[in-house]
């Protein structure tokens, strides 16, 4: 798309400074400057804490009252300074001249009000349209974002829609009054790749139609490739580098940008590791899991409940020293497989062999204890998987103490393991909130290693981390795996991560395995249409981050 260089920018931010309020103010934004022209998409890229979301909140005049304040600078929307404008004026601009889409479609809509009412409010607040006209406009807007059956959507509540549909509703709301500026704060991060692709295309299309300026905030370099005209790399509240997408991605001037790009995993799978004398440590044979929801009344009346087949006939073998990736979108059953392997869920049928013993029929803690030691799990969100009231030491030794190891001995081992995962030994006496996300995930790895497992199940273990941290944690996992000859079952929605670390890949959809084979084959030469669609939807697939240029031959 052409970027109009002439004329006034839609948004012009000059030397913007934002600080926390309170006794010891900390500067969150340190003199930010950028412009966005009509019809242009500017991507603010950066890792967590870089200040990109705060920038969007300043622009919308939505900074949390009493927590953050603008200390200097200007943010002009069509030449009008948002920062000095009276609140009433900004309120009139919000939703009409500038609009915003948020990251989490599940929580961004009010759960107790109908979609129609929430849409109607925008027209009511900013126009003098009459009831029937407002409803007609809303339904037309829903149509323009390709929502199925707009009248039904109008009468629905948010929980009756899927994540992708809700995000479409958000887009329809944001663009209802054809704003000059659209701010999209990680609008696709919480969505599946195929949905993400559709939403990105939709934003692109509507933007072209309305000549909207888009301030797009993301941490995902792949998304940048797909949507940005210009990129603004941010770090610690400052702009590190600005330029057109091609410039920044192919010839980054700053080391930080280079590091950020280098940390993006390639979509091309790495070669599988050589394997001599395979030793199966984990084997699943036709595992099924059916969830049944039945009220007490239905049980009493022997009525059948609502059945969901979460996993159907999943079989695989995992050998010592190998990594198997289970790839799929939300609802594919990949996490349920992981939970069955740990017997956190009871499989409905099938066999789960850990070191040759079927653990599926076992009941009770004592019977499961050996398998629970042999298979350890690393969870997605280290902020929530570590108990905030326990010190790192207590978290680490808990399993060992259960297994009967003396405390002193266990603590000594825990200290050693912390060094293995790259943390100081004195981290033992600290609490989870004193660590960063990446450090916490290191602790989670150490906790898994405490039990000297044969298999590690990692469920989206790096999804909550910034790319640079993600790369470090993946390296650590690979190193630990090689040194201890571990089998890893890696569950992810991210094909790049899968390509980087897996020997074998299993693609799941709606509880079924659609494709299973060596990573090199499945990801480079997919046979199933769904695998192709997944790869097709991977953001930034036509950019080679390692070489810094567009991929000419599609893989």
């Amino acid at each position: 798309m052409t970027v109009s260089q002439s004329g006034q920018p839609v948004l012009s931010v000059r030397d913007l400074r934002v600080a926390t309020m309170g006794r010891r103010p900390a500067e969150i934004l340190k003199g930010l400057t950028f412009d966005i022209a009509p019809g242009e998409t500017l991507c603010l890229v950066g890792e967590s804490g870089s200040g990109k979301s705060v920038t969007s909140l300043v622009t919308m005049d939505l900074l949390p009252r009493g927590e953050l304040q603008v200390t200097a600078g200007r943010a002009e929307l069509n030449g009008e300074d948002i920062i000095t404008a009276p609140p009433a004026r900004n309120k009139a601009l919000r939703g009409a001249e500038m609009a915003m889409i948020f990251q989490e479609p599940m929580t961004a809509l009010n759960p107790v009000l109908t979609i129609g009412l929430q849409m109607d409010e925008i027209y009511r607040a900013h126009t003098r349209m009459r009831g029937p006209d407002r409803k007609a406009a809303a339904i037309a807007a829903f149509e323009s974002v390709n929502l199925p059956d707009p009248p039904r959507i109008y009468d629905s509540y948010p929980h009756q829609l899927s994540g992708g549909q809700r995000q479409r509703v958000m887009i329809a709301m944001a663009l209802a009054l054809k704003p000059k500026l659209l701010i999209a704060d990680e609008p696709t991060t919480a969505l599946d790749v195929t949905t993400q692709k559709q939403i990105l295309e939709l934003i692109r299309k509507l933007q072209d139609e309305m000549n909207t300026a888009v301030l797009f905030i993301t941490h995902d370099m792949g998304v940048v490739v797909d949507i940005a005209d210009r990129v603004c790399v941010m770090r610690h509240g400052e702009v590190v580098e600005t330029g057109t997408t091609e410039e920044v991605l192919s010839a980054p001037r700053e080391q930080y940008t280079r590091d950020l790009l280098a940390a993006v995993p390639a979509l091309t799978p790495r070669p599988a590791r050589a394997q001599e004398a395979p030793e199966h440590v984990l084997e699943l044979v036709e595992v099924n899991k059916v969830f049944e929801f039945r009220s007490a009344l239905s049980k009493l009346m022997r009525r059948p409940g609502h059945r969901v087949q979460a996993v159907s006939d999943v079989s695989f073998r995992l050998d010592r020293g190998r990594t198997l990736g289970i790839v799929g979108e939300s609802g594919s059953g990949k996490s349920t497989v992981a939970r069955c392997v740990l017997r956190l869920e009871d499989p409905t049928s099938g066999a789960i062999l850990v070191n040759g013993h079927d653990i599926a029929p076992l009941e009770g803690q004592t019977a499961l204890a050996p398998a629970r030691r042999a298979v350890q799990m690393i969870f997605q969100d280290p902020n929530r998987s570590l108990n905030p009231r326990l010190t790192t030491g207590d978290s680490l030794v808990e399993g060992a103490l259960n297994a009967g190891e003396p405390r002193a001995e266990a603590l000594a081992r825990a200290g050693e393991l912390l060094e293995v995962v790259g943390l100081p030994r004195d981290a033992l006496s600290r609490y989870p909130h004193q660590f960063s996300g990446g450090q916490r995930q290191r602790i989670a790895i150490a906790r898994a290693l405490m039990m000297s497992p044969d298999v590690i199940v990692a469920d989206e273990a790096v999804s909550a981390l910034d790319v640079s941290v993600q790369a470090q944690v993946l390296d650590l996992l690979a190193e630990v795996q090689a040194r201890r000859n571990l089998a890893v079952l890696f569950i992810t929605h991210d094909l790049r991560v899968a390509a980087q670390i897996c020997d074998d890949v299993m693609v799941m959809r709606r509880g079924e395995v659609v494709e299973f084979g060596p990573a090199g084959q499945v990801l480079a030469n997919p046979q199933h249409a769904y695998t192709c669609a997944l790869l097709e939807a991977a953001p930034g697939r036509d950019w080679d981050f390692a070489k810094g240029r567009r991929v000419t031959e599609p893989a």
Partner: protein
Amino acid sequence: MLTYFLRRLLMAIPVMFFVAVFVFLLLRLTPGDPAQAIAGDQASLDQLEAIRDSLGLNDPLSVQFLTWIGNMAQGDFGRSLISDRPVLEMIGQRLGPTVALALVAMAMTLMIALPMGVLAAWRHGGMTDRLVMAVSVIGFSVPIFVIGYVLIGVFAVNLRWFPVQGYKALADGIGPFAHRIFLPGLALASIYIALISRMTRASMLEVLREDYVRTARAKGLPEGIVLFRHALRNAAIPILTVIGTGFAMMISGVVVTETVFNIPGLGRLVVDAVLARDYPLIQAIILLTAGTYVLINLLIDLSYALTDPRIRYQ
């Protein structure tokens, strides 16, 4: 929605049954003989036996229980041991003032506490917030009879805006009714205002941090709509719970207010019945109170479903 309501209604039946069993056994277990109470200290053993026989006290417990339930099903709750009037009639006479007082107090509570709580949460940490918190601490800590007498002292005795005591039914005209019920209503409401304004504030503080509130602001909506339509409805469930139980507690706990303001309500009837060991009356009042609780809980459940569609469709 209808099935949801019917299911809740069905669940109320076993609850009421267990309450009935409990009340029945409670009175069988308490020391004292109803026959003795009726006949007095001078009665002979034969007289006592005759009375027991006529009351059915010699039948097996299960028969007694079924007879009792059967009678109640026909609207016969028994007669007072003291006045020999039907219990239901005595309660009916007293129920009016109590329910009127509770309703007025609850209405006052909602009109005062909800805006107070919402404002305090909105201006979190500011002067308004501190003022609201201070008022609620007073409401909590000052006993109801003190508040009652202070209100009487200021508004009735000194300013002469309201009468000191007494009650007029709504049937006697809205003016006299409102005039007399205002002060007792406010006194009774004080603790609930404290409770519900705090609850509203806490619940609102949580909800105001939610993403959809930010969305509502991002749409440029007026702050009033953001607060009352978007935030308060989502904050409503814990508040409704407190309102419901608070109302049930009011019905059963108006004794002090009724005494201070000399209102012939249920509270005073309970006190008299207990002092006179009038078992049938006590029994009926306990059942009635339990019934009120069950009914109010049903209404609360229903109000959840009305405020939150996700509950409706479960």
